[in-house]
């Protein structure tokens, strides 16, 4: 074997090694964390933990308001952010004229997606709680969360729309379809799996956020379920945060159990979305 082949093989080997290390490192950290959380939570994870309200006694405390609050909040957030976000993406990608305004919007969207979530909390507090007067309830929280994930939804949806080849659109136009018929019946179905991926990512982000909701006024201690759209509420991450900050060791176990519930909720939601996407994708060939 010549010298240069040897070197090339060596380079290839070490590159593969690097790649494996890059995958392994986060996986190991994640597994260690999960195991640690899993061990801590094992005593607390039972039905009564899911169905009880928080309490001063750690062993009686449960996560019910947080879990229900999170589900309500996510449902409301998705119901607002997804249609608006996809609609905005369709407008920007399929209808808006290219030009300096489009470029400006594009740059701003990318920047907005990177703005720290606490800023959205402050905006939500001013806009939804004070100016519009929604109060410190579920709706104000969901509006704030919707604002937070909107740029991500728009960016991901635009990306998905952009991957639909021009030739496919032209095929529809050549049959005498209007722009709307083309977009709604040909382009969107093709882009749908990609749009759904963006939706999964953004909703997952919203599930884990606590900071903007604290600003908007989610409560840390709550002993009832939200009974309306403006009702006070809490969410899983806030409940977990609250338990973590208690001095007693038992509350830390509660926090661990809360984290497991949060992760499982997230995985279930993602799993559902991925299942839907795969079902739709099965019918798609290029």
């Amino acid at each position, binding site marked *: 074997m010549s010298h240069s082949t040897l070197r090339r093989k060596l380079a290839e080997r070490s590159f593969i090694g690097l790649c494996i290390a890059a995958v392994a490192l986060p996986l190991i950290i994640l597994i260690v964390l999960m195991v640690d959380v899993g061990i801590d939570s094992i005593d607390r994870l039972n039905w009564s933990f899911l169905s009880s309200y928080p309490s001063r006694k750690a062993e009686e405390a449960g996560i019910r308001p947080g879990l229900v609050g999170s589900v309500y909040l996510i449902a409301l957030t998705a119901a607002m952010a997804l249609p608006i976000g996809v609609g905005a993406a369709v407008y920007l990608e399929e209808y808006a004229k290219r030009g300096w305004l489009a470029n400006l919007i594009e740059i701003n969207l990318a920047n907005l997606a990177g703005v720290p979530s606490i800023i959205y909390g402050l905006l939500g507090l001013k806009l939804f709680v004070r100016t519009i007067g929604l109060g410190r309830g579920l709706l104000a929280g969901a509006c704030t969360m919707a604002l937070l994930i909107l740029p991500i939804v728009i960016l991901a949806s635009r990306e998905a729309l952009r991957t639909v080849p021009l030739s496919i659109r032209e*095929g529809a136009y*050549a049959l*005498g379809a*209007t722009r709307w018929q083309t977009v709604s019946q040909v382009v969107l179905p093709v882009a749908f799996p990609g749009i759904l991926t963006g939706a999964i990512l953004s909703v997952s982000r919203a599930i884990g956020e606590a900071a903007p909701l604290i600003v908007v006024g989610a409560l840390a201690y709550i002993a009832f379920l939200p009974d309306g759209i403006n009702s006070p509420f809490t969410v899983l991450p806030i409940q977990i945060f609250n338990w973590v900050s208690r001095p007693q060791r038992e509350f830390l176990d509660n926090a661990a159990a809360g984290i497991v519930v949060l992760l499982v909720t997230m995985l279930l939601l993602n799993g559902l979305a991925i299942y839907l996407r795969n079902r739709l994708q099965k019918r*798609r060939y290029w």
Partner: protein
Amino acid sequence: MSSAIEVKSAAKTNPNINLTLPDSAEKEGSLKTKFSIKNLSAWFGNQQAIRAISMDISEKQVTAIIGPSGCGKSTFIRCLNRMHELVPGTQVEGLVKFDGYNIYDKGVDPVLLRRRVGMVFQKPNPFPTMSVRENVLAGLKLTKSEQIKRAPETVERALQQAALWREVRDRLDEPGAGLSGGQQQRLCIARALAVEPDVLLMDEPCSALDPIATARIEDLIHGLAESYTIIIVTHNMQQAARVSNRTAFFLLGELVEFGKTNQLFTAPKDKRTEDYITGKFG
């Protein structure tokens, strides 16, 4: 040996098709004009793709467009159903009269025009989320045509016409994009035929097809010419000779020569046409 003779000998290998033109070519004088094109120019940005093209295209005739790659053939036919303007930054100038009306007039809705002037593209583009059946019916569904009520007949007729029926009749509910490249192209032809346009613009419809499928498409074109006006872009001069009544030769965005097909291939008037068909360039 001149290539005009080669053209003839190639045509002879297919017994179904002869080089002598259909009778209708002889009474061309009495044919109605479908498209009347005057000084048509088109641009991509600053680059002019076709220059001041003028020609009349008769109804129920097959018009072939030949010319070297990049000479503006696709651009030209895309101006006839106003597809050219869908590309950002493009521009069109001139007059295109379709049945006597200028299609570039302010009041003309390109959507309605395209329902009457169908198109088959250079590359097959079946809709990826639709089955074979849905692809064929796509035009009717998209435009909410009444004809959708006769969907099963329409599917079979269009696929028969496109010489695809036998291959896909058991696979109508499979994805259209799962067919082979040549089958996809015929599926796109069926899709265009299902909406029953007046005019069919075909941009190299046979470039992905084997000789048998090509022959069937050529038969189809012959059959369709009885009721449709067909404009076909082709790189294959034998094909132009076999299927068309009239042929237009494009070069560098200009129309060099336009005339009866057998005259253009056997006795071209322009030196450049002769050079092209005898294979001196292109």
